[in-house]
């Protein structure tokens, strides 16, 4: 299973490590990754393409629990947390 997702991440010490750790630990490999500071100060926009034998919900359900992850949108447009970033941007 392959999926892409976009997250709006509050810039806080360790936030990127925290996210990448969850991705690895929950059994997903990263095919592509980009991180750009958002126009809004103190945020990153993080886009991830991942692959796993597990369902993507197992990852997104864990990612949305991270306090720094303010919005999470799947490439299908499905918003998993927060306001739909793709639309509001």
């Amino acid at each position, binding site marked *: 299973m392959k999926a892409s997702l976009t997250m709006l991440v509050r810039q806080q010490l360790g936030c990127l490590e925290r996210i990448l750790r969850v991705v690895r630990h929950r059994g997903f490999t990263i095919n592509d990754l980009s991180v750009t500071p958002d126009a809004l100060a103190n945020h990153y926009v993080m886009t991830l393409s991942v692959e796993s034998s597990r369902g993507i*919900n197992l990852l997104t*359900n864990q990612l949305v629990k991270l306090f720094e992850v303010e919005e999470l949108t799947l490439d299908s447009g499905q918003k998993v947390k927060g306001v739909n970033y793709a639309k509001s941007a």
Partner: protein
Amino acid sequence: MNGSQYLVNALEANGIKTLFGYPGGAIMPVYDALVDSEIEHILCRHEQGAALAADGYARSSGKLGVCIATSGPGATNLITGLANAYLDSIPVLAITGQVASGLIGTDAFQEVDILGMTFAVVKQSYLVEDVNDLPAIINEAMSIAVEGRPGPVLIDIPKDIQLNRIQTPVVQPSNVSHQQSIHSTASQVSELEVKTVLELLAKAHRPLAYVGGGVGIAEAESELRSFLQSSQIPAVSTLKGLGATGNYHLNLGMLGMHGLKAANFAVQECDLLINFGARFDDRATGKLNQFAPNAQVIHFDTDVAEVNKLKAAYVGVIGHLKSSLERLNQSFHQMQFDNARWIAWSNWCYEQKEAHAWQYEKPGDVIYAPRLINTLSNMSCSNAFISCDVGQHQMWVAQHCQFEQQRFHLSSGGAGTMGYGLPAAIGAQLAHPNAVVINVCGDGSFAMNIQELMTLKRYSLPVKILLLDNSSLGMVRQWQHLFFKDRYSEIDLSDNPDFVRVAEAFGLVAKRINKKADEKEGLRWLLQQDSPALLHVVIDSCENVWPLVPPGASNCDMLEEKLK
């Protein structure tokens, strides 16, 4: 006011009365601030003891437990305790000193990247970069630890930040009580979810409640009990769920690897499994695809990530268990539900429970640990706390003790941390100074945090230690016997010290029993002590825990004791 003074004042203002810790270079300013504080600091003799004592304090009371350590080895020694709290969803705040900001990243003396090392075992963590961030960080950390699904939170504070003047020295008590608040989880149970649950119940012939630790954490035990009483649905419980159902007659006991036969049979047979705050842990489910094979699943949980993680739920009810159960109870009563459909099933479950009740008769003159533990449970008052370590004795406690509420049973479930019991008992005794607190431990586990006997003595904590000595790492021996063809490897502890003299050297009163005839008298002696005490119980070194579901097998394939 400096950062350290602010921290200590903020903890105090937020109702923290007890801290478990150990001083050192990078945390000295905080220890200096503690000199002027009302907070009682408990000097544990190892930071692991401090972290596990904070866990025991929190687990037994529902309040936030706080531990504190210096940088480097002090901080790394906390990690096992944080993992323990993380895996069992216990609210713990850990505060660590760090080398001065400018030295971070230079491999300075006693510098470890504790933030980086603990990501996997905390709910949230902070490295403070500016003293003026402290107020917000402390408030947020305390709220996060207790809210929703609780867990450990770490604040790492560099030494210069501890000493810097803080510009806003006003300590603002946050409005959180540092106990669970029902309203903390945003999502509320929807009409549709409740309707679906009721529809499933209306069709079920063999419903079964599967009760986990989440019920007690959410303080939803009375709501659960009223649901069970009014529905007369049988219940099974996880290790952490023990006690949630009180003395409900259709409670079949613990399920899983060392579960009761009636409980495991019921899971195999049920056609509707209602999970209240459990997480389909492998020790509970056995081979997952053969767990509740005929059942549809309803899953009540506060953590969205638990629903559909391991077993698909027909309906997931996400939200605080107390409010979810209240909603369920209301709707259930309004419907005046007819449970005649499952009366035959409930009766069958009850018959299984009776038919497979424990037998405590054992030929011979030696002490039979299950009987001893059961006698302990019957002799001690109903609101005694029992903490255990990890191994066979832990399973005997789970099998043979009755708990009136979950919080009386302090057991390291998710992590299985040997050495948990003594520090946890210390934490529980400090949270409940007048309660009876008993630590049931094995000879292997006892040695893991034996240094905390000094803590017992120093603070005159009347913890009662029941040491079950089988001269071996019993649980590992049992597995080597059953699954490694009796090839015993590093499990022999027959050169144990004289535990009575060890205890006495630490200032405890101690006594030894080794005969069946002494079981009751020994326990009576232990329970009567009002200072720290140890009863050394010599048990058969070949005794095993039964029944047992082999790893990877289905819960219906329980191995039983072969009578000699």
